[in-house]
């Protein structure tokens, strides 16, 4: 018996919520979700079928089943050639299994699709570029991701934080985490130094650190070293940057909190020198 469209949409939304949760569901839970998706596939309305294949691909990828996962993603992309999200999720799965070239090719296609040119695609592309050692190109893509980021989606901000950490932009990572945490709690970012914001939300942050250790590393680097070498920072400011951009986009994005961050750095340096 066919599932009603509204019921199917609710079901799909539930699966999306679980499969994109941070940290990811346990293996046992993933298996249950996968069985649920597979069992519902025949009864699901045609318009939801592509989404089901996409979610099946994500679940299988999280379970480490490469070929089945990519097969499901391919079905999703064939059923709905215009949905950039399906192609992007397939690109992410390629990356998960170390197939960086295929992942990069697909990212290039997603950027050309309707609505595909967005912060998530650009950030994910930056992640893939960094994984093949193209750090300069990765930072260019990330700068553009910062520029087009709406700043209103906490998941997007958190993902951008991870991608920043993956290209060595630890300060940006911390600031993005602060924005994401405030966004999750529906509180304006304000001018509180980022590390203080993180400290206020340690309960959520702890689960994110479990999700990806790179977030913990970036926060630790900033918390430990930021502002500790003010003279050194002044000297390195004159060194050539990896990206020769006189006015990088992230500078605009973070301009609103730059003053407060500088003050926090100065306070940290003062405390250190005391």
């Amino acid at each position, binding site marked *: 018996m066919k599932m009603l469209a509204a019921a199917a949409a609710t079901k799909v939304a539930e699966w999306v919520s679980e499969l994109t949760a941070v940290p990811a569901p346990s293996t046992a839970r993933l298996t249950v979700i996968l069985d649920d998706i597979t069992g519902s596939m025949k009864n699901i309305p045609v318009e939801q079928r592509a989404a089901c294949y996409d979610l099946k691909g994500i679940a299988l990828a999280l379970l480490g089943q490469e070929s089945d996962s990519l097969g499901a993603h391919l079905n999703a992309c064939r059923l709905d050639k215009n949905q950039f999200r399906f192609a992007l999720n397939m690109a992410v799965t390629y990356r998960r299994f*170390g197939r*960086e*070239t295929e992942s*990069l*090719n697909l*990212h*290039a296609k997603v*950027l*050309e699709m*309707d609505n595909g*040119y967005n912060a998530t695609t*650009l950030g994910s*592309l930056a992640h893939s*570029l*960094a*994984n*093949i*050692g*193209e*750090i300069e*190109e990765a930072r*260019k*893509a990330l700068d*553009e991701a910062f*520029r*087009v980021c709406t700043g209103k989606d906490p998941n997007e901000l958190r993902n951008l934080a991870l991608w920043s950490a*993956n*290209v*060595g932009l630890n300060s940006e990572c911390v600031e993005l985490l602060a924005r994401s945490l405030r966004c999750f709690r529906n509180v304006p970012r304000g001018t509180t130094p980022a590390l203080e914001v993180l400290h206020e939300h340690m309960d959520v942050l702890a689960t994110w650190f479990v999700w990806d*250790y790179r977030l*913990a*590393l970036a*926060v*630790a*680097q900033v918390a*430990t*070293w930021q502002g*500790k*070498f003010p003279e*050194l920072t002044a000297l390195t400011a004159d060194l050539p940057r*990896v990206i020769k951009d006189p006015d990088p986009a992230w500078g605009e994005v973070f301009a609103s909190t730059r003053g407060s961050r500088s003050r926090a750095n100065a306070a940290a340096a003062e405390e250190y020198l005391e």
Partner: protein
Amino acid sequence: MSNGGYRFPRKVLDAPKVTDAERSAAGLAPSAFTPKLGPGAVFKIEDDDVVFPTARIAGSTRTSHSERWVIVVDRIEDSRNDKTKTISIVPCSASCRGAAASFEYDIPDPTSCGFSKEPIRALVHLLQPILKSELKGFQGQLSATALTGLQAVIALKFGLSQERDRSICLPPVAPSPAPNG
């Protein structure tokens, strides 16, 4: 349709494909290692690839091992970039006994960082560059606490920092200079 100023770096995909054997011959690590490279990454290398200057002292001996575990300390930008063929590592030892010196660091909870033995001591005074192609196997990643602890010892070694208890050893008021004659 693309609607932004950013253009996909097609040259990255158009570049000729390089096999891991060719990368190794050029001094670079296998491409599968690249995403893992960054501060705190734990790798195995050939023991002979680590220089122990004290082994050159006349009469001294060096116990040879089949492998040596090392910790990458270069930042992500330099460790993943193919333009730099060397990478800075801190060699580790599982046979050190007694308290760590100021130029050594005992890795907290080493088995959770990928080490197969414990205790593990990072020999910070032997921090040295090796070729990226000499990295043989990725083992794990230092925790945030262990990495910042190691970096603190490195900062100390290079004179970028000093021990906290040394910074208050000046007299509260500078004494008058001793009279000449």
